[in-house]
């Protein structure tokens, strides 16, 4: 017997698994050898359990359905019965399974089509709306009344749009912002903070803006202040918080 691909987790459900088995057996969907397919299906579900994958109850229900169909197939055809009551044949559960499979297969194909479209559609780009446009827009929002009919999803949609927006400004050529942050300014800032905080602050609290230039400038500023004996850093023990303390007499 052929070895099956152990690819269980990627099935979208019992119908998907069945379609896979039918495809693998290279039989027509309308010409399924129920006995063989049922056996393979059950083997799959068993493997899933052995692999301790979470087997959804739907898989087990389908296994039961298949076994039921298989057992019915083994029963001798009761021709008298079917002639007398043909309606019963129409309500045969096997028929229902086929129509479900056919229906599911169509949507699976439609999903494939959407996937293709998704891929193609992601190669179009557009610019962000012109700012001028937004400016005027905002002027009409001045009043504090809230617009009607705005939903959470308008907000989500705006956010989704933002996420897919390309950012020319943050292109590969990084703009170096270094000149914006001078160490002198940082030193003044730190002294200012220490004055307000009764001359003591946790070292890490100086680094709330987690941008590299800020971190570097702040760190250098602390070193510079230590050199000028304006602050001192104290660490009680390894890995303890470092405290930055203001040295009063050194001020100015």
């Amino acid at each position: 017997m052929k070895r099956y691909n152990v690819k269980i987790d990627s099935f979208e459900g019992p119908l998907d698994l069945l379609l896979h088995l039918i495809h693998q057996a290279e039989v027509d969907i309308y010409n399924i050898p129920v006995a063989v397919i049922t056996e393979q299906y059950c083997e799959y579900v068993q493997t899933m359990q052995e692999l301790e994958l979470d087997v959804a109850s739907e898989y087990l229900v389908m296994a039961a359905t298949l076994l039921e169909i298989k057992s019915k197939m083994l029963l001798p055809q009761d021709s008298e019965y079917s002639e007398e009551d043909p309606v019963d044949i129409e309500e045969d559960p096997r028929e229902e399974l086929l129509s479900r499979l056919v229906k599911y297969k169509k949507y699976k194909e439609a999903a494939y089509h959407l996937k293709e479209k998704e891929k193609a559609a992601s190669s179009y780009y557009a610019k962000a709306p012109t700012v001028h446009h937004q400016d005027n827009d905002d002027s009409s929002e001045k009043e504090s009344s809230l617009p009607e009919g705005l939903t959470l999803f308008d907000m989500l949609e705006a956010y989704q749009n933002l996420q897919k927006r390309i950012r020319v400004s943050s292109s590969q050529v990084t703009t170096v912002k270094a000149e914006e942050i001078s160490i002198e300014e940082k030193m003044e800032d730190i002294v200012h903070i220490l004055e307000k905080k009764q001359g003591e602050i946790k070292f890490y609290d100086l680094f709330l803006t987690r941008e590299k230039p800020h971190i570097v400038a702040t760190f250098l500023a602390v070193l510079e202040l230590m050199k000028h004996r304006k602050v001192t850093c104290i660490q009680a023990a390894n890995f303890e918080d470092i405290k930055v303390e203001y040295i009063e007499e050194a001020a100015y």
Partner: protein
Amino acid sequence: MEELEMQAVIEGLLYVCGDEGLKLEEAARTLGVSEQEAEKQLSVCKDRIQNNLLGLEVKINGNKYQLVTNEKTAPFIEALASVPERGKLSQASLETLAIIAYNQPITRTEIDDIRGVKSEKAIQTLINKVLITDSGRAQSIGRPKLYNTTDRFLEYFDLSSLDELPTLDDVEEHDVTEEADLFFDALK
């Protein structure tokens, strides 16, 4: 307003709106013309851009018109700018979305029935991505929510309307029965 002027304005509006897109009714109101006339003008503009430009085109999604770069230029734009990675939809989401797209409005139970598995998670993902929305409640027992696709769905898949979805080869109820007969005949 003369046609040429109107065309100039439409170009400008499309440019300014960018990825937000220009809605038909906005175009009509801004130009001071009927929506019918605006649609005609937008269509003329779309053709003009198609014929005269090399790297840009006008895309229509629902009633929204968007000036976009065409496929040829995509790799170069990706090289120049940082393009956010677009999370592709999972198979479960795509299946669920396809079922909703072809059967809207539809309830969760109906989706579950077609897929043969629970679709709750996929539905939530699609709602979060604003590709579907609940549009009300069915009159049936329990008044379950009904789901529809959104305008963003059209935009996301670059469809001008739902009609653009390929038809599922419509297999009617009686066809299925006939096919079923063939199927079970073959098993005998």
